[in-house]
């Protein structure tokens, strides 16, 4: 039995953040694809109130705002993949979405939910990180709506743990429109095209100009308690020609900088090997195709 005894379904952001502030103990329901099985398995305990945020229009939609694309927290993975702005400017999210669970789950699971669930293996997190995503947070501690934003990597604290304040709601994720010459790759390791919890995942992005790689961003999934930036790998690549020596050095840097655990999906040793081999493969692919 749970302590859950209250249900609210606010219809505006304003209403939601006010209720969050007033009710205190609230479990947020977005797509539900993780909440339901986790609560059934006893891994998540419902708080006193279940707040269904799916009726809040402000959390929906994908728009361009200046040099940024704003993806509402409630946008489903399927909606994200189908959206013309995403397809044009952020094709990495389309290919990443294609590895996400199954059609049924893509239809239900939301971008905001995937972020707030903060799984080290969350399928959208690594791609969002290398695309330079910021999360947009809202709360109403007093009479005015308070919004803040932070780079996605800073948002994650541990498995299932984020910097979201108790009365705060994640409203959207913002991504800069990539500059000219921008290349990005996402690799999710697994034997299935999707419906698989990745043993490791890798995202690489940067600007490739005249064979030189710059503004490099690297991120890894499932090798630490949160998705992590590959700072040493970025350093090994930044401003370098993508030749065999650079690629080898970057792959080694990647292997050395991750400290995964062993679990039912893979051993730590194997994860490090795959980080090496797949980083190498991704970079070779970038180098060969640009």
């Amino acid at each position, binding site marked *: *039995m*749970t302590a*859950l*005894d*209250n*249900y609210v*379904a606010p219809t505006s952001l304003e209403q939601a953040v006010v209720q969050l502030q007033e009710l205190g103990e609230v479990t947020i*329901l977005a*797509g*539900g*694809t993780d909440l*339901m*099985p986790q*609560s*059934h*398995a006893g891994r998540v305990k*419902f708080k006193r109130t*279940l707040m*269904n945020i*799916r009726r809040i229009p402000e959390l929906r939609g994908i728009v361009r705002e200046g040099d940024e694309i704003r993806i509402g927290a409630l946008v489903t993975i*399927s909606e994200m993949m189908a959206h013309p702005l995403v397809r044009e400017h952020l094709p990495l999210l389309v290919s990443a979405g294609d590895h996400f*669970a*199954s*059609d*049924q*789950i893509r*239809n*239900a699971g939301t971008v905001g939910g995937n972020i707030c669930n903060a799984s080290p293996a969350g399928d959208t997190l690594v791609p969002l990180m290398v695309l330079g995503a910021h999360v947009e947070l809202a709360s109403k501690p007093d009479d005015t709506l308070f919004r803040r934003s932070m780079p996605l990597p800073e948002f994650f604290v541990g498995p299932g743990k984020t910097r979201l304040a108790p009365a705060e709601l994640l409203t959207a994720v913002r991504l800069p429109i990539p500059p000219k010459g921008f290349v990005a790759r996402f690799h999710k390791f697994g034997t*299935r*095209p*999707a*419906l698989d919890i990745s043993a490791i995942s890798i995202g690489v992005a940067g600007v490739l100009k005249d064979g030189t790689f710059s503004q490099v961003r690297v991120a890894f999934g499932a090798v630490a308690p949160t998705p992590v930036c590959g700072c040493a790998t970025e350093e090994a690549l930044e401003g370098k020609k993508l030749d065999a020596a650079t690629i080898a050095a970057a792959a080694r840097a990647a292997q050395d900088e991750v400290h995964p655990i062993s679990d039912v999906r893979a051993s730590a040793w194997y994860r490090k090997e795959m980080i090496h081999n797949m980083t190498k493969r991704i970079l070779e692919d970038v180098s060969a195709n640009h």
Partner: protein
Amino acid sequence: MSQQTINFTLNGVPTRVSVPVQMSALEMIRNVTGLTGTKYGCGEGECGACTIILDGVSLNSCLLFAVECDGRQVTTVEGLADDPLGRRIEKAFVDAGAVQCGFCTPGMVMQARQLLERNPRPSREEIQRGIEGNLCRCTGYVKIIDAIEAATKE
């Protein structure tokens, strides 16, 4: 335990039920409204046996909170009886030999319905990807893929 009263359309029929807040749509469909064509296979969205269509989009009903059905259109396998594409898919499953124990079949049929609505002429590979969230332990999928392919051709 908090009960909520919700109104929705179930296979075209206006429906009003009272459900506990944490109840899944699967439990509601099976135990409250008594439609047992939607199956429980895993409870965590890994098998697709509970696939339903909510406002035109296929979902695992085991992952969906029943309260989220409020104000929406729910279609279960029983609802395909009045749906020409659904009936065509069901017949194709029978004719192609896509049914063995049959437990995964309603979920497969629902997902095939979704797939063909969005992509009326899918390739075999697209069909395979389209049903990747539906497990079958009997058929090895070949005849299920055959059935969905055949359903596109009529």
